[in-house]
């Protein structure tokens, strides 16, 4: 119940930032339209734009809450209510942003793409991006630094040679692999390793968020509550 209340309030707060919502939609759209002449690139850029938008939202949601969470802890919340509630909110937001783009691609290039795999790639992009944004927010207290880290990560992901093995340690490699499976009709090994990478990265990022949040919002040992 507490977790859902946190998720609900995070969504309410985000949904009232109309400018942010427009930009959230604009980012993947621009990425898609910029390379629309090339199907593979447009889909990969769309997935990256989606991941970028969601992780940026998560980063800023994390920053907005940083000053309020200590008082929420005092009000009876546990650390996991706070970070998991926010994570759920970011996932819901990300899926809401992804849905119209899936419809767009289905209408625009539906015959050329494996739509089920595209849906999986979008879901995975959102699934990974939310904890990744929260992780940067948890690790770097200032939003400017966090934004720059995110920018570096996304730029690296865009510019790096796909054949280079280092791509496998980048956060959104999973959706790229599934995107390739969806667009280039490659073998199912792309789908399998993409799913595996996405799930592992999500678990790892969420675990790190949990550790950092729990440390930051821990009960300080100097404070004891008397037995009643």
């Amino acid at each position, binding site marked *: *119940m507490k977790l859902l209340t946190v998720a609900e309030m995070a969504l309410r707060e985000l949904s009232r930032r109309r400018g942010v919502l427009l930009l959230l939609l604009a980012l993947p759209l621009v990425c898609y339209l910029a390379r629309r002449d090339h199907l593979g690139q447009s889909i990969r850029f769309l997935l990256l734009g989606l991941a970028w938008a969601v992780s940026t939202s998560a980063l800023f949601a994390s920053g907005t809450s940083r000053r309020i969470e200590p008082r929420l802890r005092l009000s009876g919340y546990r650390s996991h209510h706070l970070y998991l509630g926010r994570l759920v909110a970011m996932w819901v937001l990300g899926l809401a942003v992804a849905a119209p783009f899936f419809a767009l691609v289905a209408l625009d290039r539906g015959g050329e793409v494996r739509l089920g795999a595209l849906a999986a790639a979008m879901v995975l992009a959102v699934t990974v991006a939310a904890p990744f944004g929260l992780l940067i927010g948890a690790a770097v207290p200032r939003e400017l630094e966090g934004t720059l880290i995110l920018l570096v990560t996304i730029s690296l992901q865009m510019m790096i040679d796909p054949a280079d093995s280092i791509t496998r340690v980048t956060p959104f490699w999973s959706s790229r692999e599934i995107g390739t499976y969806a667009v280039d009709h490659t073998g199912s090994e792309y789908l399998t390793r993409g799913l595996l990478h996405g799930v592992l990265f999500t678990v790892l990022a969420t675990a790190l968020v949990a550790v950092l949040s729990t440390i930051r919002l821990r009960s300080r040992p100097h404070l004891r*509550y008397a037995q009643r």
Partner: protein
Amino acid sequence: MSDERWLHALGQELARHRLAPEVTHHVVAEAAAHLRDSGQPALRAFGTPQGYAAAVAESLASQHRPHRRPPGRVRLRASQITKRYGRRTVLKPTDLTVHAGEVAAIVGANGCGKSTFLRICAGLLSPDSGEVVVDGVLGYCPQDGGTYDFLLPEEHFVLVGAGRGLDRARSRRLGRAGAATLQWEAGDGVQARHLSGGTRQKLNLVMAALGEPDVLLLDEPYQGFDRGTYLDFWQHVWRWRDEGRAIVVVTHLLNQLDQVDQVLDLTPATREVAA
């Protein structure tokens, strides 16, 4: 200002000073009689209603302090708290014990560690040494921040209330009731970012007191309050004290200090607790 409005304002101000209704009525009647007899305008005869009410309240308070029930058990005990930031010592060993039904004020110059001490008491900051023991539920009101810009006040009440185990309807009801006592209508659907600084602090204060915590830690919660709300705030403090809660207020405004139970002065040259 007409005499009628002045007398009405005087009545309101006296009530804010917690004078009994019959005393308020008596003072207003006497003032009205004086104005009738003298023919002077009220402002010239008595000054502002606020000033006159304060003078009357002070005079009555000095004649007979109300008897209060003795303080209850210890709700907050901070022992030998020290804190340094780098080479700068912010808090030398500091003690504070507050019982149920007591108000402690923390005073001192800017930068002397008032907010740091309160944050340590709340468990939001670790001291370098010392310990804090709390008996009961803590409520904390920060100096600023502590709210979401794009949420409505009622949503803040629901958020804090859920943490305290209250259902939504009760959280809203308690929040609105708390706001009303600070002369604020909280159910009007204005996002926190559109509230004035003073009203945002009222929101902060209501959130801190939601769910009736046993120990209230208030870090200059009245910033931005107008004078009337400031007096209402202290009425709240006295009421919470009468209900048996332990309250710690960080303040730099000294005109209420004669009414608190103890003063912890953190100014380096004058470190002491005055009971």
